[in-house]
C-alpha cells in the first residue's frame, strides 16, 4: 500500500440475494484512490458500481476482500465503528436526493450535522451551494436541481473526508446536471475533499482525475487522467 493512497480496495467480492435470485454484484474488484482526487466510477446499469460505493461508504459489507481508508481496514469494523465511520468520514449524495420531506432545506442539512463532531457552518455551506435564499423551503417546494444541491450541502456540511455520489445527475436535465457537477468539482477543490462519483454517463468521466471503468462486477480499467476537463466543456 502506497502512503498517499486514500482508498484501497482489494479483491472485493459481493453476492446478495434479491427475492429468489442470487446477485453477484462484485467479482474480485481491486483499485486505489489517492487523497484529494476527483474519481469517476463508470459503468452500465448492473455493473456493481453502486454496490462498490456502498461498501466503500460503510453502508454495506463485502462477501470477501478488504477496503482500507487512510490505511485503516474498514471491512472488519463492527456496527458501532462503522456508524462512526459513516458519521465522521463520509458524505453521501444520492441520485434521488433522498431528502426528508417534512424538513426544510436547512433542517435537512442540520439533521446530518447534529451528530457530527466537526461540522461546517450550515449557512456558509448553503450559501456555497447557492441556496441561502431558499433554505426555509421544504423539498416539495424545490426543483430537482435545488434538491440535489441541498443533498450535496447535507453531505458537505458534515465536513467528511470523502464524498460519495451515486448518479448525482441521473435524475436531472443536462444544464442542471452540469451545475451539480460544477458544484461537486468546487467541493473537491475548494473544500479539498476526495470526491467519488459513480455514473453510467461516459462524458462525466472527462472531468475526473481518475476513472475506474466497471462491467459485470469487475474493474475493466483504472485510468489516471492527467488532463481533466472543466465542467463547462462537458457535454452529453
Amino acid at each position: 500500500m502506497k502512503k498517499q493512497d486514500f482508498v484501497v480496495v482489494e479483491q472485493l467480492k459481493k453476492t446478495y440475494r434479491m427475492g429468489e435470485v442470487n446477485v453477484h454484484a462484485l467479482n474480485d474488484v481491486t483499485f486505489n484512490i489517492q487523497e484529494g482526487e476527483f474519481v469517476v466510477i463508470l459503468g452500465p446499469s448492473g455493473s456493481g458500481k453502486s454496490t462498490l460505493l456502498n461498501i466503500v461508504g460503510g453502508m454495506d459489507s463485502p462477501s470477501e476482500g478488504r477496503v482500507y481508508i487512510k490505511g485503516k481496514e474498514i471491512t472488519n469494523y463492527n456496527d458501532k465503528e462503522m456508524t462512526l465511520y459513516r458519521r465522521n468520514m463520509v458524505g453521501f449524495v444520492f441520485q434521488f436526493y433522498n431528502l426528508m420531506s417534512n424538513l426544510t432545506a436547512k433542517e435537512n442539512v442540520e439533521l446530518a450535522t447534529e451528530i457530527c463532531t466537526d461540522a461546517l457552518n450550515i449557512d456558509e455551506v448553503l450559501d456555497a451551494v447557492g441556496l441561502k435564499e431558499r433554505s426555509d423551503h421544504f423539498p416539495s417546494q424545490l426543483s430537482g436541481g435545488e434538491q440535489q444541491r441541498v443533498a450535496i450541502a447535507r453531505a458537505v456540511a458534515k465536513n467528511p473526508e470523502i464524498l460519495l455520489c451515486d448518479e448525482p445527475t441521473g435524475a436531472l436535465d443536462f444544464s442542471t446536471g452540469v451545475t451539480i457537477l460544477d458544484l461537486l468539482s468546487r467541493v473537491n477543490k475548494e473544500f479539498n475533499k476526495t470526491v467519488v462519483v459513480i455514473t453510467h454517463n461516459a462524458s462525466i468521466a472527462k472531468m475526473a482525475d481518475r476513472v475506474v471503468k466497471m462491467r459485470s462486477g469487475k474493474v475493466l480499467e483504472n485510468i489516471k487522467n492527467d488532463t481533466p476537463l472543466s465542467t463547462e466543456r462537458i457535454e452529453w
Partner: protein
Amino acid sequence: MKKLNLRLYRTIKHTLGQYIAVSLVIIIGIMSYVGFSLAMINLETTVNGYYDMTNSADIYVELNRIPENALKFLYDIEGIVDIQGRVKDDFSYTDKRGVRGTLRVVSVPEDQEHAINNLYIRKGSFVRGNRGVMVVQPYAKAVGIEIGDPIDIQINGKTYKLTVEGIVSSSEFVYVIENEQTLLPDNEKFGIVFLEESFAQKAFGYENSYNDLLIKVDDEDKIESIIDALEKKLKRYGASRVISYKDQLSNRMVQEEINQGKNSAKTVPFIFLIVASAIIVTMITKIVRNDRMAIGILKAMGYNNAQLMGHYSMYAMGIGLLGGGLGIYFGLKVADFFAMLYVEFSFDIPMLVGKVYIEYVIAAILLTVLFCVGAGLFGSRRIMSIHPAESMRPDAPKVGKGIFLEKVRFIWENISFSWKIVMKNIFRSKKRFLFLVMGIALTYAITVFPMYQSLAIDQVFLQHYSTFQKMDYNVNFIRPMNESSLYDIKGILDTSEIEGKVEFPFKIEHRWKTKIINIIGVQPDTVFYNFTDEDNRPLSLPKEGMLLSAGLARILEIEVGDKILVNTFVPEREDKWVEVTGLVKQNLGSNAYMTMDYMQKNFMDSQLITGVYLDSTDDVKGILDDMKHVGSIQSVVDMQEGFKQFMDILYISIALMIGFAGILGFAIIYNSTIISINERRLEFSSLRVMGFSKNEIFKTVVYENIIMTLFGIMVGIPLASWMLGSIGDALSTEFYSLKIEIPNTIYFYSGIVTIIFVIIAQLATYERLHKLNFIDALKNRIT
C-alpha cells in the same frame, strides 16, 4: 429542537387523527386505573376510618331475649372487652306522604361517647327522654323528614307520638337495605330509627332485657373462637345469629363493592392499554416499513440503531405522555367523583378521605411507560435489521400466488373485477387482515359487555321476582305465630292465593366451611316458588332433605347428594344432618328450601309459621298494618319500582361504557384503515393512473372493510361469549348470580353498534383518501 425530533413532531402533526385516537384509548386506560384504584382505596380508608370513629362492633348477635344481668357472664369468654345490649325490631309505618314502608327500630344507650356503633349526628341532637327519635339520613332525605317533625309509631298496638330530634348516620347501616334478598336500597320505604334504650325496652316489652347484642373484642384473630363460645352460651337465650362484622350485611355489601371496584381497576385499564399498545406496535411497524429508505439514509449519515429506535419510540412515548398525563389528571378528578358518588348516593357515610396516593400515580406512569415505550421499541425493532445499502434498493416483489378463492370457480367466475381485487388484497395481506379482524372482534366483544350488564341485572330481578318467586307480597311476622294466623289474614284480605311459610336463620356446615343462611320452609306443592336447576329442569321439594341455591353450593363446595350439618339456634333442638337433593337456580340471595312439615318437625315447633306469601289486589300494606304481629310486608311491585330507579342510574354508566367501546373501536378501525391507506399509496396511485376514480378506490377499501367487519363479528361472537362467561363468574357474588342466558338479540344489537363504529371510522378515512396526493405518492420515495 433536534432535527430528528422536529421530523417526529411533524410526523405526529401529519398523523394527528391517529395520534389522538390512540391517545384517547390510553387516556381511558390510565384514567380508569387511577380513578378506580384511588376511589376504592379512599373508600376503603373512609369506611375503616368511619368504623374506628364510631367504635363499630366486632360481633353481632341476634337472640330471643337475654336479661341485662346475664351479660356479665359473657365477659368470661376470653377476648371480649365490651358488650352492649339493645332492642331491635321492624314495624310497618305510613309516612307523612301516605306511603307505607318498614322502619327498623334500634335502641341506643344514653352514654353515646362510649357506645359501640355510636351514631354520627348529621342534624339536631341525640335523643333525651321518652319522646325523641333519631332517623337515619337516607330515609330522612328520601321521605323529607326534618328536625321537629312528628312521627307516630305503633308498637304492640300502642301509638307513641314522637318527635324527630336528630338525623344521624350509623356505621352499621352504611348500605341501608332490609335484608339479603332486597339487594338494592329503597330509602323511601325502608329506614332505621333510633330510640333511647329504656324507652325502647319498655315499648317493645323488653324491660331489663335485650334481643340484640353488640360485642367488641381485643384481638380480631379471636373472633371465630369467641363466636363459637357465644353460640354455646347464648343458645338458651334463643340466639339465632352470631356473626362477625365481616358477615354483617351492610359491611358485606360495602366490601363487595370495594372488591369489585378493585377488580375493575385490575382488569378494565389493561384491556385499553393492551389494545393501545397493539395499535401503537402496528402503527410504528408500518411507519418503519414505509420509512425503510429514510432509515437507510439516516444510517448512511451516521445515525445508529439506538438513536433511530429512540426516534420512533418517541412517537409512542409522546402518546404515552399525552395519554398518561391526561389519564392521570382525569383519573384524579374521577377518583374524587367516584368516591363522592359512593359516599353520597350508594352509601351513607358522613366523611370522605380524598387522599392522592402517589404510588398509584407512579404506577400509572410506569404502566404508560411500560406499554407505550415497550410498544414503541417492539414496533421499531425492524430498524435494527435495516441495512443502509439494502434499503436503497427497492423491496423485492412479493412472491405472487393465486388465492384459495380462485380455485372455487363458480364463485370466482361470478364476482366482479372490483371484488376480485378486494379478495386478493385481503388474502394476500393476511397480517393486516388478522389485525383488523381481531380489532373489530374486540370492539364487538367490548360492546356486548355493557349490554350484557344491563340485561343481566334486568334478568336477575326478572328471574327472581317473577319466574322464581311468584308471590305479590311476602309478609313477615314479628315472632313465630300459630298456623291459624294465616286464616286471620285470609279473613280480612281478599287473596287469590295464600300460603304460610317458615323462614329462620341457621348455620350450615360442610366440611370445614360454614355459613349462616335463612332456611325457608314452604308447602310441598307451593305455587309461589318455581324451583329449577341451572339447566332450567324443574326440581321438586323433597319430603326429607333440602334444596340449596346453586351459588351458595358453589361457595361451600356442596354437590347434590351431600349431607350438610344444620346447626339450629332453637333451644332444645339438636343439630341435624340433612341431604341436599337439588341445587336451585337463584339469581338473587342464597337460601335453602325444605317442606314446611320437615322444617317444623326437625328444627322448629310444629304448627308455627313466621309469615305468609300471598297474591292479592287489595291494599295489603294498609290492611295488614293494623295487625299486631305483622312485622314487614315486602311488595314485589315496590321492588320492581326501586329496581327501575336503579336502572336509570345504571343506564348512564352503560352509555359511558358503550362510549368507551366506541372510542376503542374507532381507534382500532380508524388507525388500521389509515395505516392501510398509507401503506398502499403507491398501489392506489397506480390505480389512479390506470383511470380509477377516487370513489372507486374508496369503494374497494369499503368492500374490504365490509368483509373484515363480517369476519370480525364472527370471531367476536365466541370471544364475547367467552368474555361474558368469565365476567359472569367474576362478578357473581354470594348475593347475586350474573350467570344468565344471553339472548341472541344482544349479539345482534352489538353487531349493529359495531357496524356503526366501523362506518364512523370509515367516513373519517374517506376525507383522508380524498386528500391523498397520488402524484406525490408516485414521485416520492421517502417520507
